[in-house]
């Protein structure tokens, strides 16, 4: 399976950024050596810096101007009919591949018979599940972040069908979703009157233990890791296992430099130090089948 060169993707922006910040970010992203860009709101339907139509317009513009593959990402936790309505619009766009982040999108896409991708919040833990979804039109899947290289290896070994595999290799990891908005809660505000506090935390709001250990980051109804997952040193291994795409999850600053480092590493060039871009530190435990927040040092492997 390994022979193709690894490709780089830019995951959807998990945070609530302003309209200007989003446009600026994608203008810059267009210049980076990523092969694929995932666009769209995946966390909270109250975030409307860009309307659904504007996301699709942006997809068209990026596709036309960069030649990169553009994928439309969809909401992960759907509760209201209005959210399903937006989801239907995206699933019926007729132009771009759609990333399902909930089984609702899998249903809408597979029942239309169009190929689709799944993001890290669609639970694919074994080859049997993959086979069912491939029959439904699954073209690409992202490994759930808690699964290890050994599990991935076993899954791909048991698979004869054609599917592209993507791994979340860089960024604060999405860990969970809730009906409750924890950013609003941290300001003692109800979700229905959240005052869009997420706008003030473009990388999430830090949550620490009582002994000041940085632990999680609150991102509205989503909770993510405070530490940044980084599998840059594991690139050869990822390639050998048969991974096709490496996903870099956008952060507010320096995403272009991180993409650059991964791109150089793929080409076998020396990579710049990216530690300064993750001030709270790195973790890679899940990849090694360990506790997610651990950092297994590359030298002790």
């Amino acid at each position: 399976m390994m022979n193709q060169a690894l490709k780089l993707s830019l995951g959807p922006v998990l945070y609530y950024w302003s309209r200007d910040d989003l446009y600026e970010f994608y203008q810059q992203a267009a210049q980076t050596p990523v092969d694929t860009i995932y666009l769209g709101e995946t966390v909270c339907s109250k975030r409307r810096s860009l309307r659904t139509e504007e996301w699709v317009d942006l997809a068209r513009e990026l596709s036309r101007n960069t030649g990169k593959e553009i994928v439309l990402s969809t909401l992960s936790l759907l509760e209201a009919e209005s959210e399903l309505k937006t989801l239907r619009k995206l699933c019926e766009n007729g132009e771009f591949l759609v990333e399902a982040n909930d089984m609702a999108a899998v249903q809408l896409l597979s029942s239309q018979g169009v190929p689709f991708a799944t993001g890290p919040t669609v639970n694919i833990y074994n080859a049997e599940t993959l086979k069912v979804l491939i029959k439904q039109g699954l073209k690409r899947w992202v490994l759930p972040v808690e699964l290890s290289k050994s599990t991935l290896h076993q899954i791909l070994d048991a698979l004869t069908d054609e599917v592209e595999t993507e791994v979340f290799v860089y960024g604060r990891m999405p860990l969970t979703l809730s009906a409750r908005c924890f950013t609003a809660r941290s300001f003692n505000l109800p979700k229905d009157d959240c005052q869009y506090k997420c706008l003030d935390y473009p990388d999430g709001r830090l949550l620490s233990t009582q002994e000041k250990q940085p632990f999680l980051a609150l991102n509205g109804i989503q909770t993510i890791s405070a530490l940044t997952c980084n599998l840059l040193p594991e690139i050869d291994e990822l390639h050998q296992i048969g991974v096709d795409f490496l996903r870099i999850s956008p952060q507010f600053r320096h995403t272009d430099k991180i993409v650059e480092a991964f791109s150089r590493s793929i080409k076998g060039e020396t990579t710049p130090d990216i530690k300064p871009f993750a001030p709270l530190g790195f973790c890679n435990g899940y990849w090694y089948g360990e506790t997610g927040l651990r950092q297994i040092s590359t030298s002790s492997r």
Partner: protein
Amino acid sequence: MELVCPAGNLPSLKAAVDNGADAIYFGLRDDTNARHFPGLNFNEKRAAEGIAYARSRGKRVFMAINTYPRPDGWQRWQSAVDIAADLSVDALICADIGVLEYANHRWPELPLHLSVQASSTNYEALQFYFDNFGIRRAVLPRVLSLSQVKHVIENTPVEIEVFGFGSLCVMVEGRCILSSYVTGQSPNTHGACSPAEFVEYRETSTGLESRLGGLLTDRYAKGEQAGYPTICKGRFAVGDDTFYAIEEPTSLNTLALLPQLRQAGIKAIKIEGRQRSPAYVGMVAKVWREAIDSSLADPDGFTPKVEWNLALNQVSEGATTTLGPYYRPWQ
């Protein structure tokens, strides 16, 4: 409305049956179900005894195989499905697509329920499982308000079961990996959240500390009741405040909503707590039986009796309860 009660062992199953459960759910003694705790659950022989006991009294029995197998465990999940078929349980409660596919293909007569761990919160997702595996019922995650639950029911061919009482997951079930982030084990992979083997209480000069996998989840003042260090119920620092940043230790109790739940078209109410004692199961079953019967007899005049809520509070986390997501302002 069916009352579905938990059983972590045979005495609990009998307590549930004797106190008014319509159906009982259980799991095997391994990681194929989401209450994989030491000393808990059933082997085949015990399960057969329990099923016979329940059946002879007109009750139904469901088996949960509701975790997510990874390739090296696949055969264990497959054999659990075969065991359920041999036991001819009244329904199998599953979450994983691969497991559902196997069960539906190998044992087409075996009724399938979609577990809360499948994380399906809307009717389009349910439609996927209905179309592909013919699920008859789904248990909804504890994230929807009552009007949202009603909307799902109006748009799905699948029977809907909701949680009525017990420990409250604040996160959407089946898509929370806080536990493995700290311990390496999650409900999806190991069938346990914040497993006991990682729990530690330390007496320090500043008071008692609770830790999970070494991570400090809370500190307790002298005389303060220490809770179980489930991550989402710890006290953490955000900005300048240290507080229950995610959720206070509390349990879900929807007794007061019974008439509305029935009116919404809910087919079954689930009680959480396979890890709890037979006394808990018996008491909770009894209260809910009485409450359901009384709400059926007089839906308009129904109010929960004080003694019901007192009894339920006594066995609740933090001795308090909440309507949780069903009540919009909680969100």
